[in-house]
């Protein structure tokens, strides 16, 4: 690694010499724009399993591995070495510490990605270019002269298709040939550098007005009053960036040739997805299919088999028998036995049944769908299409995913709000999920009960839920501090998802979820069981009598609410045993839908936010459920 052998320019300036010639290099940074396939290259080089997604921003922290004795650091996606965002600041630190860089370039986005390449070469960083997604260049009707690109840049260029492992062996061999030209045009601005002791890579960043780099360089020169010396940035960023942009354009003109300008099938599909007239119905169909898969195939059919026929019919009786045979039902062991095998949330029976028979298939199904949507590039397009509607309730288009997932399982959906953006968006989407989005298990029973009441009650239920959802969203948007974050997302290409990649992501993410969730759910289940054992749950039923009376419901409805504290579908199922009039059933169903999230969803909310937030949402759900229920009871009485 060092100065490129074919560079016949003058020797580097003093500012560059220490960095350009770095003989004993062993830290190699993997650098490129978001969504160019860095994680795929990283996985192939290190045989690791970092997340690979057709979605910008998968890598938000540096991941470290090793390849042929080198320490390989996968940096967050960045368009240049600079400090405009947190990801870019992390990438800048990685680059400044690296002895060489593998610059992953999307071969279909040369105009965009070669800016970073030229900047790395300006900084004198030994570089090898991985020219990725070469398989899509021909599909676009383009041709890239790799030899010409290598000659133009003056560094090794290796064509790759990382997700198919193509070119990886060549790339591995080329790491030791990483180099940088001895001199580049950026040196014409070196005279404008402030009087600081900088390496070449630092000098280029200072010329480009990178204040953190300048502050670091002057940190050792503190004045007597403790302040930093007054060194001005040269304000040359625009000039240097524009000059570099012209160099990039010239490089692209020389190496890329368009051989076929016909629109590809992908172009046609992409245009249809982004046009609101065609995209909206397509998105609705897509959302419907996602719901069909998660909410029906997984949440109803598969879960039914696993929960009832396998765990309910075989595992739970077997485990109950085992515990009954080994743990005596008297003395000190009696409460232990109760916590382990009680019918509500026994630690070794119902909790295991719920975790493995209900949550595991839902989680795996969700990750499978999200993985396929990410890989195909459809997820950001869905976000763009739904953005306008979601922005009215303080969210952006990305939040549509948790809402769909919530119809399958709210616990899982709370986790998926990570996709929604800032903490504010996550709070709003979590609150709406906890309040007005029924999970599929509950929804299945509710739909059955409403069907018996008639279509009018069904539409009334749907209208009330949508109204509460909208009003709650607007209320949260107007009361929570801060501004809602607009949807800014780069649209990756539409492509066919790769089954291997989607499955790998599903397995990795599901394992991660279970590792986090199992201890949390075990503690929660044990706590609920203890409450039940000491009679606290029965006390709650008694305490709820005034509230149930205000709703015009019988006292037994208190038991339904207590069941709802544990699991929402328990409450819905309990409703089937009550003798209620049509209007009472309608009010009851609305109340149990708006009532608190199930205990496991609450545990997830606390985990993803904090205890205070969880308590506010929990008490807020009580208030909204009884307020709306009371209003409806009054209305149906008048009608």
């Amino acid at each position, binding site marked *: 690694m060092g100065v490129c052998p074919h560079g016949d320019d003058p020797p580097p300036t003093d500012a560059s010499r220490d960095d350009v010639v770095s003989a004993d290099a062993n830290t190699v940074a993997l650098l490129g*724009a978001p969504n160019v396939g860095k994680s795929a290259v990283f996985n192939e080089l290190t045989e690791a399993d970092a997340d690979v997604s057709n979605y910008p921003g998968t890598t938000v922290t540096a991941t470290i591995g090793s390849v042929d004795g080198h320490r390989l650091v996968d940096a967050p996606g960045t368009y240049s070495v600079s400090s405009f965002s947190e990801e870019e600041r992390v990438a800048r630190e990685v680059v400044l510490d690296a002895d060489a860089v593998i610059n992953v370039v999307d071969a279909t986005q040369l*105009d965009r990605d070669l800016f970073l390449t030229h900047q790395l070469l300006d900084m004198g960083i030994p570089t090898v270019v991985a020219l990725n997604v070469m398989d899509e260049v021909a599909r676009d009707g383009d041709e890239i002269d790799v030899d010409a690109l290598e000659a133009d840049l003056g560094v090794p260029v290796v064509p790759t298709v990382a997700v198919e492992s193509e070119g990886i062996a060549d790339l591995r061999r080329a790491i030791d040939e990483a180099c940088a030209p001895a001199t580049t045009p950026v040196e014409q601005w070196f005279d404008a550098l402030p009087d600081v002791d900088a390496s070449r890579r630092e000098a280029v960043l200072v010329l480009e007005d990178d204040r953190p780099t300048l502050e670091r360089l002057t940190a050792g020169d503190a004045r007597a009053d403790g302040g930093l010396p007054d060194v001005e940035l040269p304000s040359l960023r625009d000039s240097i960036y524009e000059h570099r942009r012209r160099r990039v354009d010239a490089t692209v003109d020389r190496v890329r040739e368009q051989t076929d300008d016909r629109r590809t099938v992908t172009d046609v599909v992409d245009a249809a997805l982004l046009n609101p007239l065609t995209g909206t119905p397509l998105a609705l169909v897509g959302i419907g299919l996602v719901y069909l898969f998660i909410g029906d195939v997984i949440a109803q059919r598969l879960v039914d088999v696993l929960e009832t026929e396998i765990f309910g019919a075989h595992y739970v009786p077997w485990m109950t028998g085992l515990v009954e045979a080994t743990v005596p039902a008297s003395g000190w062991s009696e409460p232990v036995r109760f916590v382990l095998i009680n019918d509500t949330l026994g630690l070794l029976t119902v909790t295991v049944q719920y975790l493995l028979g209900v949550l595991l298939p839902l989680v795996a199904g969700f990750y499978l769908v999200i993985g396929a949507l990410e890989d195909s590039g459809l997820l950001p397009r869905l976000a763009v299409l739904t953005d306008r509607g979601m922005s009215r309730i303080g969210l952006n288009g990305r939040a549509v995913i948790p809402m769909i997932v919530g119809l399958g399982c709210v616990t899982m959906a709370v986790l998926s709000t990570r996709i929604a953006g800032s903490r504010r968006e996550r709070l709003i989407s979590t609150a709406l999920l906890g309040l007005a989005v029924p999970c599929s298990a509950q929804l299945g029973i509710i739909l059955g009960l409403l069907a018996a009441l008639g279509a009018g009650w069904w539409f009334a239920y749907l209208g009330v839920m949508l109204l509460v959802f909208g009003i709650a969203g607007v209320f949260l948007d107007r009361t929570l501090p801060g501004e809602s974050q607009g949807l800014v997302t*780069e649209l990756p290409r539409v492509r066919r998802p790769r089954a291997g990649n989607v499955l790998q992501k599903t397995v990795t993410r599901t394992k991660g979820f279970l590792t986090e969730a199992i201890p949390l759910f075990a503690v929660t289940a044990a706590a609920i069981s203890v409450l039940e054992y000491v009679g606290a749950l029965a006390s709650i039923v008694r305490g709820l009598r005034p509230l149930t009376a205000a709703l015009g419901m019988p006292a037994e409805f208190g038991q339904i609410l207590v069941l709802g504290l544990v699991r929402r579908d328990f409450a819905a199922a309990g409703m089937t045993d009550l003798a209620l009039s049509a209007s009472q059933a309608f009010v009851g169903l609305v109340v149990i839908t708006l009532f608190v999230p199930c205990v496991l969803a609450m545990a997830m909310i606390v985990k993803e936010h904090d205890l205070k937030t969880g308590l506010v949402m929990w008490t807020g759900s009580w208030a909204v459920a009884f307020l709306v229920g009371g209003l409806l009871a009054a209305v149906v009485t008048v009608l």
Partner: protein
Amino acid sequence: MKCPTCQYDLDPASHDKCPRCGYTLRCSTLDCGSCGACGGGSLASLRGLFSRDDD
């Protein structure tokens, strides 16, 4: 304005593409609220629409 692709802060009045990522600025893909290169006025915006997209 912020470049829609890379978020680089650029002046649309003096650039026809983002210097950092090369995103081409077009009136057909930007709204006037985020751009403002025409200096306000619907007539100016309309003129910008034709002159820029014809480039």
